[in-house]
């Protein structure tokens, strides 16, 4: 478990609402409002996607929405920056392969 529950300056992590996210078909606990990337790390998930050509694993890199290394398919939409997108109860998150695949919405919009 990598959740920081006690901290000398930030204080204790209390009063946080729990939600459930579905990652590659399996349910995991997450904290309401936290970023997807944080929820995944808290559940010891470090690989978020595989690259298109060499199938190399990637995880978080910049943590502030700039580098796009942490992108995943979220609720059917690929290339979502997980480090700046908050979780929602019931959110469906999938490991992304290559450029991903649109499963929802119209990408010609």
């Amino acid at each position: 478990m990598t959740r920081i529950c006690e901290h000398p300056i930030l204080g204790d992590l209390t009063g946080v609402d729990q939600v459930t996210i579905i990652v590659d078909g399996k349910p995991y606990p997450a904290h309401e409002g936290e970023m997807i990337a944080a929820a995944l790390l808290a559940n010891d998930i470090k690989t978020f996607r595989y690259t298109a050509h060499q199938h190399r694993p990637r995880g978080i890199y910049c943590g502030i929405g700039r580098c796009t290394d942490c992108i995943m398919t979220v609720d059917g939409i690929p290339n979502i920056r997980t480090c700046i997108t908050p979780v929602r109860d019931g959110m469906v998150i999938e490991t992304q392969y290559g450029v991903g695949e649109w499963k929802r919405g119209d990408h010609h919009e």
Partner: protein
Amino acid sequence: MNSFPIVVIGAGPAGLSAAIEAAKAGAKVLVIDENLKPGGQLFKQIHKFFGSRVHKAGVRGMDIGRQLLEETKNLGIEVWLDTEVCGIDQTKNIWAIRNKDTSVNIRAEKVIVASGATENAVRFPGWTLPGVMGAGAAQTMINTNHVLPGKKILMVGSGNVGVIVSYQLLQAGAEVVGIIEAAPQLGGYGVHTAKVRRAGVPFYTAHTIKRAMGDHCVAGAEIVGLDAGWNPIPGTEKVLKIDTICLATGLTPLTELAWIAGCEFTYIPELGGHVPIHDLHMESTVKGIYIAGDISGVEEASTAMEEGRLAGISAAADLGCYTAEEKRKRTLEIWDHLNALRCGQFGQKRRDAKDRILAVGKEMISWAVHV
């Protein structure tokens, strides 16, 4: 069409300070930020700041963030979050996407670009593995998201970011297995460095990372000693058992919007690379476009706030909110603060580099009134 006398891009320490000064002068201001929350990187800075009392020394970055947000609210400054600026033209017409789905145009008379900076990468075999990340990313994970990115950390870089984040990783319960520094001497302020050393973290000067080990994520790192010419010394390799590699290897100003707007640049390596040329009032080579904070050269939040104030005062004054004399007086006041922050062993280098930008600015910005 939305129309604002002053639009500030970026709600970090520089942008908020700029907006607060401009609003205090009586100008109507809009602040735009791409993030869901304002404050830039202030809220992950849980350490106490340096400087004198006037620079809020001894106050934690996160508390300074709260103070700035409070002031922004009290002044009734409009803030658009989740709004990404995609373009600015030379007539100061801004194109942005709100809430990731709505295209908006904003007409501004003055634009203050306070877009910040981004962390530098270092490339080595294995650098793309999950578990290699910016030191700032690790800091965001622990202090903003309350999650440890790993349990055994190798920090690459002993500058202030490297040692401060190392200490914060210790506070959060991680083990920092080592801090490596390619230079022969350590790079951070003594007080931060000493805290980490007292906590028992080994420092390796004149060392670099040779490779990250692991198939699916980081499982170790091989480091190697460097000679006086920065070349690896064969036989000095050492394998550290770690699960996370944090890169604290400097920052680069986020300058895209200033390039798009047509600002002229100069190259100042000590401040992170290409920075928009500007004058004493933070005005760029495009009249009515000002810059503040890390975009004008990577420094610290305390200098970013002062530069933000300079830009806010200049923009408001140029709209007629202040007389030339008032503008001059306030500008000089803030330059006193900036000069006080840019002194000593570390600050002087930044001051000299800043002087070089201002010297170019003086040449190029013909309308600038030099105080």
